[in-house]
């Protein structure tokens, strides 16, 4: 009757709290390399490498100790988390998913754990002319026509090892980041700003290909793991969960076990899902 899940497995999930979360009680959480301390509607963001701080209070971001002198990457990391928190105050919620826009102008979200193939399949779709909303994140909002996915534009990066399937990547070999365990290279794509969501696919790498519909409850349980800041105990948490609920109740949701064969036909797989 009840299945238990633990949110701590996902790379983008918030860590364990260290104290109670009643209103105006300090709550500690973590997002990547950024520690967060939320008290009521105010948050303090602390970079764990440089100890630089960024603060969010009354809807405004302000620089804290160490921010001005921190390296650019640190400031970017803090600003990114600050922006996600600020969006949350405006009922827009960041989600760890790729977003692509089908020829009919509606968005498909590709989600799953880190390494499940989001970037690879996003690039496969981008090569076939599907605009990209985000490679590793989108921002969800519920408006009068349903759930909208807004772009969260990071560089689209794919592994150079995919050159076997995408020969044009060989032109980028000199730009490979060899420090990166996945040996990724930035590639070009057309980005869109927003699109109404048509469906969601939970990806899992496999040696075979199989697309199966999943229930709303299973889809929401999957999304909870990928929803950045869902567990921050402020007064936006229930609205955040409600948007995810509205998403899985309003669009078809699938799991896709995918082999490299999908690199050549992922567009047909997605378009065929609702046929």
């Amino acid at each position, binding site marked *: 009757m*009840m299945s238990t899940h633990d949110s701590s497995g996902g790379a983008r999930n918030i860590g364990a709290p260290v104290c109670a979360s009643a209103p105006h009680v300090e709550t500690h959480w973590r997002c990547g390399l950024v520690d967060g301390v939320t008290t009521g509607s105010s948050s303090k963001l602390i970079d764990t490498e440089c100890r630089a701080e960024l603060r969010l209070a009354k809807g405004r971001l302000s620089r804290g100790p160490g921010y001005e002198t921190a390296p650019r990457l640190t400031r970017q990391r803090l600003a990114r988390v600050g922006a996600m928190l600020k969006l949350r105050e405006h009922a827009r919620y960041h989600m760890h998913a790729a977003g692509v826009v089908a020829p009919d102008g509606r968005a498909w979200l590709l989600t799953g754990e880190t390494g499940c193939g989001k970037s690879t399949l996003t690039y496969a779709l981008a090569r076939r002319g599907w605009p990209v909303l985000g490679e590793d994140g989108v921002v969800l909002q519920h408006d009068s026509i349903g759930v909208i996915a807004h772009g969260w534009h990071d560089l689209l990066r794919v592994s150079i090892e995919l050159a076997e399937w995408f020969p044009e990547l060989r032109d980028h070999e000199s730009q490979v980041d060899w420090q990166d365990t996945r040996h990724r290279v930035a590639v070009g794509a057309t980005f869109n700003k927003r699109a109404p969501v048509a469906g969601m696919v939970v990806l899992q790498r496999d040696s075979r290909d199989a697309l199966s519909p999943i229930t709303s*409850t299973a889809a*929401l349980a999957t999304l909870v793991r990928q929803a950045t800041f869902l567990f921050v105990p402020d007064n936006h948490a229930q609205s955040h969960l409600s948007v995810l*609920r509205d998403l899985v109740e309003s669009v078809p949701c699938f799991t896709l076990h995918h082999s490299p064969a999908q690199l050549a036909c992922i567009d047909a797989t997605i378009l065929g899902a609702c046929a």
Partner: protein
Amino acid sequence: MTRYRIVPDALSASLSDGAVLLNLYTKRYFSLNDTGSRIWSLLEHQASEEEIIETLVREYDVEKPEAARAVNRLLDDLVAERLIEPASV
């Protein structure tokens, strides 16, 4: 007649085929099937354990002893996960 209250750290989303519960304090989340979701909605309306059992017997094809066991088991799980607590009389 035991009654329970839902703790402030618990969030819920009711769906067509079940429900998902979150505990903001423990950072754990839970999925409920259709029956579990019905029980949760009765808890939201402050129904007692006995009232929940009677409702299930009325709405589902289930005998009272079996319904009582299922309800008791779920309530125990929900208490253990700090999603509900016995309401003070």
